[in-house]
């Protein structure tokens, strides 16, 4: 087996300078990306970063301006039909099926694909608590999302391409989704999942790629994310905040002080933060996960300084 053939059997998704230019800086540009077979790859980025554009190119729903993509060694555009027989897909925007019943939609898509077993449909519908007897227009957004998941996971494909798959799912069904991903991975499937929520990919992904403003900013293993992991922190003090101690605390960035309130982005151990607050009277301490854009702004602003 040559080196090229070896690459062909181990790489599920390969892009080479893949570009879709919508003009005015919108789209995805010069994307070089490899996703290995059997891994769960998280594709992270803020809204409008180019995640869905990338996915539409991989699904041959859009045509590349320049560059190329391949899936399982097949050209994503030329061999689209053969590829899709091995792919399960959750679109970013859910389709509208009006007055169709869920059961009819499943039967229709099963007819198009030809590889969805009724038993698998029933198993996933039960797992997601999705009543297929109801009309699509009566489904909540979450139920529509469950149906999209059922259609993607039902055929047990070799590759799952999922665009923001947990959108609209409640926490309980998000856990069910994570379970579906784990099962798919256990049987050897590759999963390419886009998200703009950092904590979500931490649940399921082996590796992540981060895209911003149409460009791939970084690719790495999950633990490499720790370098950019951050929390937005807001602390309210009973008296004057200990500004100098906070400013000198490693990992505390973008500090702003407004009266008795101090806020900023913190990446690092909370033990150190709490130690830094020792001696000050803290009224409240809030910590929330920042948006990816906030992470980027603080991370990249910091790295260029």
């Amino acid at each position, binding site marked *: 087996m040559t080196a090229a053939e070896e690459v062909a059997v181990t790489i599920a998704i390969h892009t080479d300078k893949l570009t879709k230019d919508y003009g005015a800086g919108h789209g995805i540009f010069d994307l070089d990306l490899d996703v290995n077979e059997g891994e769960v790859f998280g594709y992270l980025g803020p809204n409008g970063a180019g995640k869905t554009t990338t996915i*539409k190119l991989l*699904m*041959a*729903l*859009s*045509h590349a301006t320049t560059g190329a993509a391949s899936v399982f060694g097949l050209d994503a555009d030329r061999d*689209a*039909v053969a590829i*899709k*027989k091995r*792919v399960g*897909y959750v*679109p970013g*925007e*859910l*389709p*509208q*099926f*009006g*007055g*169709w*019943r*869920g*059961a*009819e939609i*499943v*039967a*229709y*898509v*099963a*007819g*198009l*694909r030809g590889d*969805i077993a*009724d038993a698998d*449909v*029933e198993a996933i*519908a*039960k797992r997601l608590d*999705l*009543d*297929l*007897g*109801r009309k699509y*227009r*009566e489904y909540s957004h979450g139920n529509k999302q469950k149906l999209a998941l059922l*259609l993607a996971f039902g055929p047990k494909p070799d590759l799952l391409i999922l665009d923001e798959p947990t959108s609209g799912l409640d926490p309980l069904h998000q856990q069910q989704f994570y379970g579906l991903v784990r099962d798919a991975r256990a049987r050897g499937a590759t999963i390419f999942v886009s998200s703009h929520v950092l904590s979500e990919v931490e649940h399921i992904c082996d590796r992540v790629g981060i895209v911003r403003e149409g460009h791939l900013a970084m690719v790495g293993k999950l633990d490499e994310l720790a370098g950019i992991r951050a929390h937005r922190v807001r602390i309210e003090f009973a008296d004057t905040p200990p500004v100098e101690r906070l400013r000198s605390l490693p990992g505390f960035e973008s500090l702003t002080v407004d009266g008795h309130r101090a806020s900023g982005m913190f990446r690092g151990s909370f033990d150190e933060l709490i130690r830094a607050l020792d001696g000050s009277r803290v009224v409240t301490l809030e910590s929330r996960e920042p948006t990816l854009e906030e992470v980027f702004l603080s991370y990249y602003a910091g790295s260029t300084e």
Partner: protein
Amino acid sequence: MTLFRLALQSHRTGAIATAAIGGFAGILNATAYVSIAGATPPDRAAFAHSMEIVGQQLTYLLPRPVQLDTMGGYLVWRDLSTIGIVYAVWAMLAATGAGRGDEEKGLTEAWLAAGVSRARWLLTRAGAFVAVATASLAISLVLTELGTVIAQDAVPASASAGELLPLLALTLWAFGAGLFVAQLTATRRVASVAAGIIVIAVFTLNSSLRAGADPGQARWLSPFYLFDRSTPLLADGSVDPLAIAVSLAVAGLLVALSVWAFLRRDVGGALIRGRMPSGRPRWGPSSDPLLRLPVLAGIDQQRGWIVGWAVAMAILGYFLSSLARTIVDGFKDIPAMQVYLQRAGISGYADVVGAIWFSTALLIMAIFVVAQVSSWAADDAEGRLETALAAGVSRPRVVVERIAVLLIGAGIVAGVSSVGVYVAARAFDIPVPADRLALATALVLPVVFALGAIGHALVGWRPRVAVALVAAVAVASYFVQEFAPLFDWPEWAGRASLFALYGTPMTKVDWAGAATLIVIGIAGTAVALAAMRRRDVGR
């Protein structure tokens, strides 16, 4: 003001289309009148006498013919009543779009969330419609007046202007009905069907009155009756302010009821809604085997739609065919009509069945095609095409399956409607050969193929304008086919119509025309395949 401007925009396409149809029909009817009725008083008197005999048989569709020896009388009979129907249908569709369609798109929710009150939302939509409908009707009437000037038989401008209010009142009545029905139902499709039934019911009420029945005071429920009461284009005609006031009052009441209903119902829900089914949940897919088969899945999804079209067309075919004998006998005494029939190649009763029925059937089948083209465009905009392609369906297969579904559906509709024609022919002793009727029915399919393929090519090129463009092709084809023999246009101009290429196969089969239609269909399909292959899919 932004809300009002957007509301105006939402009615823009319909307003332009109705103004174009109304204006074009007005010009053609006005100029055609001089050709078919002649210019001298004796010619016109003979025309009026004969047409009034024919017109008695058409009262289910047109008003009682009066003063057909004048341009004004002819326009009232032949043009304005039909234009009234066109505007009523548009108003109904515009109302269901405003009352339910925008809700399905999430627009209503967005505006309400932005602080617009429900009453303001609906009243703004209604106000915008009044503005665009007035403008559209004014353009139609100005163009119709222009037609009478071109025909050198101008009617007084004040008389033409006098038609504005009656037409507007009829249009707003239909809008009010559509808006109210939209509050009672859960989807735009259901609302449109329900509003359509109401419009047909009040139209039929007036038709029964025209035919001699006496519905009593119930006649005032029909906006078409109220419209017929104003006849400013007739020599001794006038505008009936009471009828207009009643029509406008009903329209206002229906809008007020719509606001009342909208204030009480849930956004996205109907005022009247059934209880959710309480049975056990279903976990498995549908057992309908047709849903899993190529092409047949498409037919299965449209089964109700296709059956509805087939039944409606069969009934219409029966009625039109039943009139063939009366029409032929009535036209015998009109020299200009004899010339027209000769140019159109019509000599016997069966020929008239062919000419009248199939020219109407082609127009209705064109509407069927336009509706299909609209659904293809919606497949893309609403993500269903994306679902099919993601399931491993090739792009060429999508195009070929759609065309196949269209042809099968059209074949069913045309076939069933021809059964209605044949039954009527037998019942009224009109010798229509079954084999010839079957052939003429089959030859409808090349027209459907050509128009559908053009539509699909347009969908692949510009989905947003495809419906308007393919509708324009159909309307132009209809008018060219109707008026080419009337005005003795050169042959090449007549052949520019898809319908003209169909010819009159009940009299003589135009194989060259059929072959041309098939070539257009193949070329259109090829363009559609290329466009589908090249384009990006999605919203």
